[in-house]
């Protein structure tokens, strides 16, 4: 779907689609042909655009409009969503993402590597470059529909995902990202690090932190979208803290003695964040016990690396030919 839309500069704006769809709704007795729609938008400028071919094609692709015997009809379900531009906006976004769900190219854009989390503003962000040049029309569409916001700092080339639509990301995009994470390289990494149970442990820690902070702080699950932040959860030491002060890497294990595998990236982040960095070691066998307390280690780059009570061994070397 994205491939045949690639050549169009303009995929539409809320004003365009609202006019198109309400016109079809309000004149349902009139038969609309494609030529009539072209005529409707001829010699018009809508939100700085005056070519609408790509927008009409998109409306077909996501089944907002359908062609029956040469007549263009509005999707019946969508008729109920045209009470206001905002309502249409929300439903359009939902429909768009559901239609894109099975499109492979979309996961080149919405891939784990392209996401990041702004922990201060608690926003999930996407690299602007994720769209390349070929899907920049989709980027503009998502900006115009307020799904993405341009970062206010000019030098930061990230787009902020509107929290209003985060649920759609969670529902449609996230499962696919996870599937792909486990499908490819990430799977190997996860297996090697024995973190296949990581998500269960992370959910446990989210709940644990929520309770520890009396349910009044917004704890951010960083690892939900991002694999390379160096920690999984951004939390707070106390309820008084205004911005995250506790960056938690969650490790799960089985057996009596806690153990974990530490990646170079995580270790480097731990060294940088020092006392703000915490390791939570979760015993998978005890995770369902009501009063289970995980082992929480603050500043592990000092407390573990320089502590003889922890045995350290190198699991593998990176060996590279330099001839």
């Amino acid at each position, binding site marked *: 779907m994205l491939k045949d839309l690639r050549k169009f500069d303009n995929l539409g704006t809320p004003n365009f689609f609202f006019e198109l769809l309400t016109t079809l709704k309000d004149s349902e007795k009139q038969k609309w042909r494609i030529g009539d729609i*072209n005529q409707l938008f001829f010699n*018009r400028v809508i939100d700085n655009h005056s070519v609408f071919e790509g927008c009409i094609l998109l409306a077909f692709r996501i089944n907002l409009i359908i062609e029956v015997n040469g007549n263009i009809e509005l999707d019946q379900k969508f008729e109920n969503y045209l009470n206001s531009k905002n309502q249409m906006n929300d439903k359009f976004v939902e429909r768009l993402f559901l239609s894109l769900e099975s499109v492979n190219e979309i996961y080149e854009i919405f891939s784990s590597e392209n996401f990041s989390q702004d922990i201060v503003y608690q926003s999930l962000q996407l690299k602007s470059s994720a769209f390349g040049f070929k899907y920049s029309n989709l980027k503009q569409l998502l900006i115009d529909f307020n799904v993405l916001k*341009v970062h206010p700092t000019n030098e930061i080339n990230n787009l902020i995902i509107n929290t209003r639509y985060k649920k759609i990301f969670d529902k449609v995009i996230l499962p696919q990202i996870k599937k792909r994470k486990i499908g490819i390289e990430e799977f190997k990494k996860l297996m090697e690090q024995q973190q296949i149970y990581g998500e269960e442990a992370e959910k446990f820690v989210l709940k644990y932190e929520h309770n520890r902070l009396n349910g009044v702080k917004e704890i951010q699950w960083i690892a939900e979208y991002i694999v390379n932040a160096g920690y999984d959860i951004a939390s707070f030491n106390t309820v008084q803290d205004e911005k995250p002060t506790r960056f938690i890497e969650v490790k799960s294990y089985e057996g009596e003695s806690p153990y974990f595998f530490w990646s170079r990236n995580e270790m480097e982040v731990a060294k940088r964040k020092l006392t703000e960095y915490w390791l939570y070691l979760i015993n998978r066998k005890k995770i369902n016990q009501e009063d289970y307390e995980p082992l929480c280690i603050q500043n592990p780059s000092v407390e573990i690396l320089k502590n003889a009570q922890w045995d350290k061994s190198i699991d593998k070397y990176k060996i590279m030919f330099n001839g």
Partner: protein
Amino acid sequence: MNKKIRIDKIQSVIDRNKDNKDLLKQEIMWEDKLESMAVYKIPLEYLVYNKFNGRILSRTKSLEKQKHSIDVETDEGKAKIEQLLWESKEDRNKKTLSSISKFGQQRVGIITKDGIIIDGNRRAMLLNRIPEYDYFKAIILPVTLEENPIEIEKLETTYQMGEDEKLGYNPIEKYLKAKTILDKLKPTIGEDEAIKRISDWMGEKTSKVREYLGVIDTMDEYLQTLDYDGIYTQLDGREDQFITLTNWINNYYNSESKKAGWAYSNLDVDELKSIAFDYIRVKYEGKEFRLLAHGLKENHFFGDKNIWSSFSLEHFDSTNEIKEIEINYDSPNLKSHLDDRDTKYKEKVKDSFKENVRKHNQKLQYNRAADKPGKGVQNSIDSFDSINKGHKNFSNPEVQDLVEKLGNNVFDSLNRTSPNRVLSHIVGLLEKIDISKIPEDEIDDAKKKVKKIQNLGYYLFK
């Protein structure tokens, strides 16, 4: 200043001057009539640049592809357009700036009633750079851009594609302009009628407009192939090659053109296009570029099945494994980043391209010479004579193998056409042998060979 305020402010300029009889008037074609319209002095702060101005269309589109749509009503958007206008023709801008500083604004501009500059974006940008000027002399159209965009497009195109102005443009702009107008008109009035209108507005023949549209299609495909979609700045300096390539495509697609004397398919033409894109990317031009497929079939690689197969095979062999640097989509200077990427690609392929062209050009020459044997053979003799046989490399075994191969080829050829000539040649060779030059240790071997010649001669005689 928002649109509504701009409309009010500009209207107040008109109202203030309603009894002013000294207002300069100028005639323009508006809605197919020659209208006499007053020229007003509009404060520069009431004006908004037109980002789709034909002078900078390729630059605006490239920038919007990289970032997001430019809002010309913000300070940031305004600054961006001013920068693009300044960079569009810097030398010319410097001259005009100096002229405006001395004499003021000489050519009147055109704006819409909400302050969008239709003609004179560059002049307004320059005026904004000169502190003593705070107004723009312009005709005010009775509409906003939204109220009649097609008529405004027509006006803009007629003004900006006029003969004098055309020179001041980047060559790419006219192709883009033609496509932009076609896209606007085609869905409603159809392609043929749209082309007629474009030809009217641009003052070009319809065939020329069709050529522009074909060329921009090829350009778009080139950009897509490189994942440079819509980055029109990457077409700079390559216009001529695209015109040539578009001609080839038109000639060869869906027809067995006489210009290629073999039963090629559209897939072969696609291959030609793909190879031509690589040559355009590394900026091959002129005669060397035309060797790919231009003119009579004996003058280009695509004209001969064997040459083309061998040429394309070697081309893809040399390009398939090339590892390129990733595109930095956020590069603050995208044009120089992509230029640099293209240059690095060129560094990797230039030697193989050069050798491939040289080798197949020679085959072409041989083919041509095949029709004129005497000339061909003479060329070969000249070529062999011109080799410095005293050079130490000449005695290399590999070179000597080639010399032997050349001798065998000559012999085989003689043998096929006239065995008697072979005998004459052998007699001549035998007579020329200087026996005194045979080293002592080779005498026995030489005697054996003479014996063998005797035997062969005996059998031949029988």
